[in-house]
């Protein structure tokens, strides 16, 4: 058998080459697995094992939230629930400088609590808010920046489909991880607000104030009660039931979907056309994710079989570096991969290697999960290939790419700041998880 330190770069290198050549992520993993089985396990019956692993890796009740969380986001996106809630929140804000930026972060956070899809969230915020921000002469980092930043919150604040993928690959409790993400998600949103406040104060011309139609208190309250408060039912159906121990995360996801459908129906927003659109969107994202999950679990088995996982683990534990340095190193790898790669692929490449290491070093797996997910959120905004940069480019075609990169920068720095805060005070994320029944 070849030494693991030769095999590991070979396996990862071959995978990266396939990805760069434009192989779809799922099939790049599949081909590496097939090649690994042929070369390391001698093919034959071992392929039979691959079929069983495809079957075993997706037929898990705990994966069901992936399509369901995406479906929630799609219903929100295709019905007019989001638009109405936004209108009601718009009335609540008075004539403050940077009000549209605040509105973006506020509504982005609320929608993040109803949707598990970052792309849907960002596209929604972008199409609803960017035109009026542009018309009012907002600076890029106060218009496109908060859209990307708070759009990306959808993958942190539960429901979050990516958190479910992470929890499955890393074998941590899905319910706990979802709950652990609440405070860091809200903290990030709060820091975005602080940044916007300071920025709008220091240079008022970057977010010009404008006269708003004064809404009466009655109108404000009515909007709040009719279009914003009902959303909390859905938030309760997802997060509340997990907290109370009434339902598993999967059941919570199903209830959340049912709640979203129900709410859309109550607003008379539900028709066959919209349901079909939502189902179509959900099907593409979930088939894409589940196909990757189905074929890629074999990848971690391949790493284990090649001896790379164990070899690297022994190597790292022998190095005797402090856990904190190790965490930073691992996060640096995630960050670099994040500039070029898609998130599930990053998780599937790194987690099989990282998880044994953090276990051996005694690092809390939930804290590590939260940090990694924030880092993966950053990956959505880092040049040159962050997905959200392109989503936004799609909404704002006349803005040069460089301006979009710059607009994302302050929000990336805030995310990094929160990662450090969690490293210093892990309680930020752990405190709530203790309340879960």
């Amino acid at each position, binding site marked *: 058998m070849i030494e693991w330190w030769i095999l590991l770069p070979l396996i990862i290198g071959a995978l990266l080459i396939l*990805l*760069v*050549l*434009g*192989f*779809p*992520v*799922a*099939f790049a993993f*599949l*081909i590496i697995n*097939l090649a690994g089985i042929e070369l390391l396990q001698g093919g034959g019956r071992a*392929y*039979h094992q*691959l*079929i*069983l692993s*495809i*079957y075993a890796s*997706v*037929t*898990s*009740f705990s*994966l*069901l939230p992936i*399509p*369901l969380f995406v*479906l929630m986001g799609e219903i929100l996106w295709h019905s007019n629930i989001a638009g109405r809630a936004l209108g009601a929140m718009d009335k609540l804000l008075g004539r403050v400088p940077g009000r549209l930026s605040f509105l973006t972060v506020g509504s982005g956070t609320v929608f993040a609590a109803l949707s598990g899809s970052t792309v849907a969230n960002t596209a929604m915020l972008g199409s609803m808010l960017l035109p009026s921000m542009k018309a009012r002469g907002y600076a890029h980092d106060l218009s496109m920046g908060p859209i990307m930043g708070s759009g990306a919150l959808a993958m942190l604040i539960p429901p979050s489909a990516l958190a479910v993928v992470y929890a499955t690959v890393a074998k941590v409790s899905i319910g706990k991880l979802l709950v652990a993400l609440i405070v860091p998600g809200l903290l990030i949103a709060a820091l975005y607000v602080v940044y916007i406040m300071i920025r709008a104060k220091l240079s008022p011309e970057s977010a010009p104030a404008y006269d708003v139609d004064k809404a009466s208190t009655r109108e404000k309250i009515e909007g709040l009660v009719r279009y914003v408060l009902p959303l909390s039912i859905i938030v309760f159906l997802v997060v509340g039931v997990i907290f109370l121990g*009434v*339902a598993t995360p*999967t*059941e919570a*996801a*199903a*209830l959340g*979907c*049912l709640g979203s459908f129900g709410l859309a129906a109550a607003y008379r927003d539900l028709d066959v056309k919209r349901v079909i659109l939502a*189902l*179509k969107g*959900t*099907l*593409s994202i*979930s*088939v*894409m994710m*589940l*196909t*990757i*999950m*189905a074929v890629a679990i074999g990848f971690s088995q391949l790493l284990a079989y090649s001896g790379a996982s164990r070899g690297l683990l022994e190597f790292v534990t022998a190095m005797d570096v402090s856990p904190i340095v190790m965490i930073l190193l691992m996060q640096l790898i995630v960050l670099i991969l994040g500039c*070029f*790669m*898609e998130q599930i692929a990053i998780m599937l490449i790194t987690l099989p290697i990282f998880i044994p290491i953090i276990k051996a070093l005694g690092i809390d797996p939930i804290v590590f999960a939260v940090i990694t997910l924030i880092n993966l959120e950053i990956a959505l905004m880092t040049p*040159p*290939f962050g997905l959200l940069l392109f989503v936004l480019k799609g909404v704002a075609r006349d803005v040069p790419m460089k301006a979009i990169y710059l607009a994302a920068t302050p929000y990336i720095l805030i995310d990094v700041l929160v990662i450090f805060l969690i490293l210093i005070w892990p309680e930020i994320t752990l405190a709530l998880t203790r309340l879960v029944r």
Partner: protein
Amino acid sequence: MTGGPSAMTLNLNRLLDRIEDGLAVIAAGLLLCAVLMVSLEVVARYFFNSPLSWTFEVTEYFLLFIPCLGMGWLARHDGHVSIDIVTGRLPEPLRSRLARVVALCVSAACLFVAVWGAIATWESYSKGARIEAILQTPQFLIYSAIPLGFFVCALEYARKALRAAPGEAEST
């Protein structure tokens, strides 16, 4: 390649589209079913104190059928995420040639999985193996999603590989 595609190719093309669409519709139906079944389960357990134990098992099988049935359809719509850092910058004839080679490799890999999936399905059928759970579902019924899905996906990528590149005689 001169002249248009023959009537047979057109028919085959349409047939594959129909199969893919049909399977995708079933997948979407399963997704909706899962929402209803799991919600029903929660209600049955908490309000009527009578859990429907089978929902758990059935939705797990759905999770294999959804990606398998949707795979080919998604491939046709280029929905399987890929990274176009390098390929997006290649000059045109090279880019579509590379894309064809990639599609051909993916098609071969999917066909390979389909064949092994068929073997596994056939073996569990002839052994009469059942999944050790409440419903005692015959294993081959569930396994059959794998050869079916990967075979349709292999056909789709084969079509992508064979399809004329823009600028060549014919394009679709």
